[in-house]
């Protein structure tokens, strides 16, 4: 409860973690607000089906609030008059000149507010992916502010969890992105870092994942606990194993 998890990928695609968390929280019965900026609803729906979760049904029952960034952006730019006057689009920052993400935060807060309907277990905010907001013109400080407000609202007030995906790389030239990622790393309770193998491309091992539990945040003398596993992604599943113990080698 009340935890901030950072999903980070370097030179590989960490979106399998997003799919995992989405189906995990939906199966656990939590109310999920999913800010999906990168892909369309049908993409997530098809993968979720393979993992055993029906996104359309969850959406209808009110368990899942899905913000499809691509569709929302098109409605904002190409749509005629606003259907609901007084309720700005969550991606309002695209058309304004100030890169503030206030409208997006209001959307998140409204969707996770405890409602009068059937009560679900703790609220969860899932974002895929945060680095995209920088590409769309938001300032790094605005992105950090947005995350800060979300944490205050979801983690502290509502005792829910926040899971965010970012892309990063050690030799990246994108300084704004690195700034946001480093700042988020310092504030996260748990970091899942998916990386490519240091030795290059391999067909049987798709990468390695570092799980960092930030115990140092909560207890003064504690060190962060780091675990490393390697993984292989299959059609319906991801298998994890200790480094060097891939099925292809044994």
């Amino acid at each position: 409860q009340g935890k901030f998890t950072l999903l980070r990928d370097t030179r590989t695609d960490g979106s399998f973690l997003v799919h995992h968390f989405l189906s995990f929280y939906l199966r656990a019965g939590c109310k999920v607000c999913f800010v999906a900026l990168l892909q369309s609803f049908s993409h997530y729906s098809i993968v979720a089906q393979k993992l055993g979760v029906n996104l359309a049904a969850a959406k209808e029952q009110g368990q899942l609030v899905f913000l499809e960034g691509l569709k929302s952006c098109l409605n904002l730019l190409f749509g005629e008059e606003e259907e609901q006057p007084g309720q700005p689009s969550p991606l309002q920052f695209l058309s304004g000149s100030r890169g503030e993400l206030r409208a997006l935060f209001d959307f998140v807060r409204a969707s996770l507010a405890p409602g009068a309907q059937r009560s679900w277990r703790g609220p969860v905010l899932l974002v895929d992916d945060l680095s995209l907001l920088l590409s769309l013109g938001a300032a790094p400080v605005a992105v950090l502010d947005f995350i800060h407000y979300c944490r205050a609202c979801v983690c502290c007030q509502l005792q829910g969890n926040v899971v965010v995906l970012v892309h990063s790389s050690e030799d990246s030239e994108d300084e704004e992105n690195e700034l946001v990622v480093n700042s988020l790393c310092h504030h996260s309770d748990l970091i899942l870092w998916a990386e490519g193998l240091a030795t290059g491309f391999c067909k049987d091992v798709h990468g390695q994942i570092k799980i960092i539990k930030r115990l140092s945040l909560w207890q003064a003398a504690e060190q962060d606990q780091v675990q490393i596993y390697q993984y292989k992604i299959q059609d319906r599943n991801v298998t994890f194993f200790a480094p060097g113990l891939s099925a292809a080698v044994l």
Partner: protein
Amino acid sequence: LVFTEEDKYGLYSNLLFKYFLAEGIVCGHDLFVASAKEHPDNILKELPAPLLDDTYRKELGDEAAVVNSEDFQDSMKIAWRYQNLPKMEASPRSCTKFGHYYDVSKKMPPELCQSVKWHSFYLHEEQCSEPKMKAWNMNSGYARLLQSIQRIISQEGFDGSDPQKKQRNVLRIGIQSLGSVLWGDDVCCSETPEDPHSLTKFLYVLRGLLRKSLSACIITVPSHLIQNKAIMERVTNLSDMVVGLESFIGSERETNPLYKDYHGLVHVHQIPRLNSLICDVSDTKDLAFRLKRKLFTIERLHLPPDLSDTVSRASKQDLAGSAKLLSSGCGAVAVGKKHLDF
């Protein structure tokens, strides 16, 4: 969204662009061609002619037959461990036909061009009439292009908005040399462009349009001119497939004996991972292309055997360096810094 990084002089990427459009014509898809450099009418006149099935297959069949009969009997004596590996196929077999083949030396007949409906967007001929664009916060050339694409998509019903229309067709969009100075964007000129987000915003909206409709798009970008590498990273994250073409013209590799059969390298930086947890990764990443008199082929890179007596250190280092470049592709799967994979 196929994002192609142009080679230095734009020769080969132009060819790839024309192939995409020509395939659209042969399959009966509608076309949308946008450019700020060349008038789309001229582009369409220059498309390669499709090869008729019988003549090409016969040629390919002859070649394959010759190759097969030669090494059918040989069993390896020294490198016998390799005997069990499947035969390397440099060029696609004729039995697995996907798409069509084209003859680069001939132009597509105009009747075939007229058989599909095509739309064009030539930046310098478009009028600036939309007042709404101010709210978009984007380079006006890009904004106009997006509006034009969206208009065609909704008018022609590619987004399924017209339930009356029974025959659903695909729209192939080709955008040439995006990001170059001709579009009014200075991202290729300076390291700190005036509006660094224009290109990425454009790609995001384009991605939304493509996801919403039955269309596919190829974009060529002169990425060697873009000095701000952060933009290239963001652009890679926004595209489904990223392919880079590196031609050997004018570089030291042209005279390198390792590359004598080829005209350039193909770098696959990213492949699409849609609707699934995994993506379709081929087992080799070393691809090179060559332009023969009639055909443009992409093949696996064969390094010729190292038979010369005076092999200099320089070429060995170059080989190691290029091997590192070759294997550091494919952002969807792991990528490493050291060149230990072979």
